[in-house]
């Protein structure tokens, strides 16, 4: 019986012009956005690779009067793109594309693509993820709203039930009949999405892909369930459609903005001015000036090495002061950035809890986490970049320490006591390894998206229970 109902529903859905049109448009949008996204991703990834190499060459072949000045010449790191970016770019466009690494300060990322976007194009994005998260639900609404309500209006529901068809069989048959044509849309989309993402990089994380597909399929299941529930409970198909359209619009468009507006009030991030001031404060360390600190270090080193004069020290007091000040300023900067990222995390936590009421929001969070395009992944990269900056600067400072530079001068302006680069300038630069970054694994991403994953799971269970409850109270008239 279920098979017969499912087959009939499948045929009805397939013949329905609304389905064909809407499915065609959704697929068209999906593939267009995927192709464009993939093309843009490939081009940007190529540009990042080129510029990263250019930066490395600049670093290796520059000339500086001493190692600390060489560190000041610095280098720029370009944020690499995750291979799943074409599927879901997430916050990628709103993050700076590069960060300038230099001594004494940890800079913010700059040159975000969103900052260079023209005004007219600020109104929204068309991505593969947006197509699946926003447009596919509309298709499901159109398929489900009249499943029971329409039959009830036409009087066929009473007839079908009177010939002995169990409501549960009718429900399962209708659900299959709706889902199969939907899968015809979703499966090629998913396969294409994963295939595109794997073309450039072979090491796409399986756990991420599985979780991503599971998330979207759960969402499909939830929406189908909600559509059928509303259709069972509504007196007319018009009422069912109105409710479902309202649900779609509120949960997909209004709720995410409102949730973040509330989150930003719940855990306010510092204003640009406040954050700049905090960073400036971090840069000044404990307020001791360079000369005072250098004198303290000199006294300590003189005692440690048992010599009378700074010129007898095997180390540069100037370099040592730079080294120690970098330790202090880095700690202070890292504290400030940690506070900022913790603030984002608190905002996200609130949004995660709000998303329990709005499954599209949970899906969006899960999708970005699995694609590696959420703020948590950015924090992971930003911290890796900072570790690299610190290692680079301190390596150069240590070269300055070993050079015994300026030990004879309280003003460090008299010229070196030893060559500025005892082992040679090029070797000093080459001793700083090129930056390499490994995106965290899938389980790391999943552990950070537990609440949205759990939310979707709860909604799947809740939908099943709600539909079963509605079936027991089904009204034929």
């Amino acid at each position, binding site marked *: 019986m279920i098979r017969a109902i499912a087959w009939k529903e499948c045929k009805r859905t397939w013949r329905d012009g609304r389905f064909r049109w809407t499915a065609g448009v959704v697929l068209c949008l999906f593939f267009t956005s995927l192709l464009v996204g993939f093309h843009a991703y490939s081009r940007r990834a190529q540009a990042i690779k080129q510029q990263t190499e250019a930066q490395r060459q600049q670093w290796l072949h520059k000339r500086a*009067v001493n190692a600390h000045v060489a560190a000041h010449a610095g280098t720029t790191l370009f944020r690499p793109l995750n291979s799943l970016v074409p599927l879901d770019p997430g916050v990628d466009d709103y993050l700076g594309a590069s960060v300038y690494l230099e001594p004494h300060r940890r800079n913010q990322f700059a040159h975000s*693509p969103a900052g260079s976007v*023209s005004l007219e194009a600020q109104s929204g994005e*068309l991505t593969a993820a947006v197509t699946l998260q926003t447009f596919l639900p509309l298709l499901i609404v159109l398929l489900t709203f009249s499943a029971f309500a329409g039959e009830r209006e036409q009087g066929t529901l009473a007839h079908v039930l009177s010939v002995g068809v169990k409501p549960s069989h009718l429900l399962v048959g209708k659900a299959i009949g709706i889902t199969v044509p939907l899968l015809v849309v979703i499966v090629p989309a998913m396969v294409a999405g994963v295939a595109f993402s794997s073309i450039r990089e072979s090491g796409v994380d399986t756990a991420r892909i599985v979780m991503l597909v599971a998330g979207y399929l759960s969402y499909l299941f939830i929406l189908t369930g909600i559509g059928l529930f509303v259709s069972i409970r509504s007196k007319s198909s018009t009422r069912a*459609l109105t409710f479902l*359209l309202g649900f779609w619009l509120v949960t997909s468009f209004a709720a995410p903005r409102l949730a973040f507006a509330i989150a930003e009030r719940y855990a306010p991030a510092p204003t640009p001015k406040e954050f700049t001031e905090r960073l400036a404060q971090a840069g000044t360390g404990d307020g001791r000036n360079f000369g005072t600190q250098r004198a303290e270090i000199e006294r300590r080193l003189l005692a440690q090495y048992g010599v009378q004069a700074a010129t007898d020290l095997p180390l540069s007091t100037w370099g040592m002061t730079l080294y120690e000040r970098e330790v202090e300023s880095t700690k202070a900067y890292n504290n400030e950035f940690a506070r900022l990222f913790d603030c984002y995390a608190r905002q996200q936590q609130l949004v995660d809890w709000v998303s329990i009421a709005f499954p599209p929001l949970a899906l969006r969070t899960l999708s970005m986490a699995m694609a590696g395009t959420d*703020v948590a992944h*950015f924090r992971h990269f930003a911290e890796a970049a900072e570790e690299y900056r610190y290692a680079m600067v301190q390596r150069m400072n240590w070269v300055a320490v070993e050079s015994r530079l300026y030990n004879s001068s309280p003003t460090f302006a008299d010229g070196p006591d030893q060559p500025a680069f005892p082992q040679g300038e090029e070797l000093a630069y080459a001793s700083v390894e090129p930056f390499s970054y490994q995106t965290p694994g899938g389980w790391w991403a999943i552990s950070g998206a537990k609440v949205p994953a759990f939310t979707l799971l709860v909604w799947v269970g809740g939908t099943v229970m709600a539909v079963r409850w509605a079936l027991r109270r089904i009204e034929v008239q």
Partner: protein
Amino acid sequence: MTTLRYEWRILRATNVPWLVAVIGIVASALAIAEGLIETRERQRGFDEAAREQQTVIENLRREVVRNEQSRDSAGIPRSRLLPGTTSPAAVQSRLTNFTAALPPLPTAVLSQGLSGILPQRYQHRSGERFTPFERTADNRLMDGLFPERSADNPSGALMGDFDLAFIAVYIYPLLILILTYNVVSADRESGTLALISAQPLSLKRWLAARLLIRATFFALTILFPPVMAAAVASGSLDSLVRLAIWLAAVSAYSAFWFFLAGYVSSRASGPAFSATVLACLWLALVIVVPAAIHLSEWLFSIDESQLAYVSLERAASLEINPRVDAAGTALRGLLRLHPSLQRKPGVHEDDPWFVELLELPVESALLTDLIEHDSRWSMKMSGEQLSRALVEARRIHYEKRLASVLTALTNLEKRRDRVIQAAQFASPALLLKGVIDEVAGTGIYRWKDFIGQMDNYIREQNAFFTQKVLDRQNVYSTDFKVLAPFVYREEPINSLLTRIALPFSALVLFPALSIHFMRARY
């Protein structure tokens, strides 16, 4: 009038208008509250920046006046002593360490626009050696400018602001559709349309009355209250004009949705069908078309060009900074060899040592560029002039080095903007968003104007101090007529009107075309 009265009775008998009104009022109130908080925060940032700069200038001026009034043991005014606290370099280093902020307009509450993405405050630090250059709107480079970058959560930026612009562009059409989607189709389905057709009342007038009563209800309960509140709060004539434009633009946009809903409802077989079609149209015009336009940005490869620019800027920096460093070292050596080039305490401007010039054998290539660029400079300079010349030479070298890549990038952006600006006419939502951002003063044009004015201010200040150095003069109290704090000059309202004339006309054209289409087909 009778028809209108009956229609009002029918409408208010249902819960729908009250539900729409409550949703509209609550959403608008939340958005206004959000806008007020943001605007107040920005205003505070602007006030602090203006106050700080004013204080610095006032303190400097007092110091200069004090120096002018007091004399040393030889009877020479201290203001003419060298080196003094009022030398061009000393004054500039204090004066040009300031923060420039773009003030929010009172109408900023209408839309947060790009204020969350584009920096609204810039710190200028003179003498910063390792400053990455920021591009200006007209393709020039600015030295020493550090933007205060947003520290907001990028996830929030991705979702978008919950401001009045969002409510007007996204939510108002939905509320209108809820009010209007079944304006004819419900009667057709229930069979009452045939009954109405039998009455001595034309269907056109009947439909017009139905739409009019809904539009009036919508305007009175949802559209006017936020404007009235903003008008009372703002007060100035400029703000009232801006609010009037906002009201006219949103009214035209709302009218378009009323007519569209009326037309679709009159053609649909039932309310379910008209609701479906209208939801799809909303999706297409408000979401898909703007998103598709966004998608077309990839054609222009702006991101890749920007990445290349960052690398080239670094290369230029690596090339020029060691040369400036080397020149500085050579200069220090020269000053040791020729003490007469230095200023000494107790010497005043007219002392002959100060005007003694020397053919300086340092970094002639760097300085040649400067001399070619600015005829005021020659190869004969005092020590102070040489220091200044190196700073100027560094800037000119940067500009020259990056000119081609900047021109290419700017041309690319201009081409992109032309295409995108033409494409915006495909969606009334985009047109309205553009007009609202302009009216609220949170759009791209005002920001670019701010950057341009800031750039001009810094260049004027630089030119002033350079001239002082060339003239071998200190700064005097009379100079403070020129040394005013940076104040953003608001563009005249006429410029705004000229700029938004086209998108606004197109916005008005949408409902006009809808009426024409309806009259032809109904």
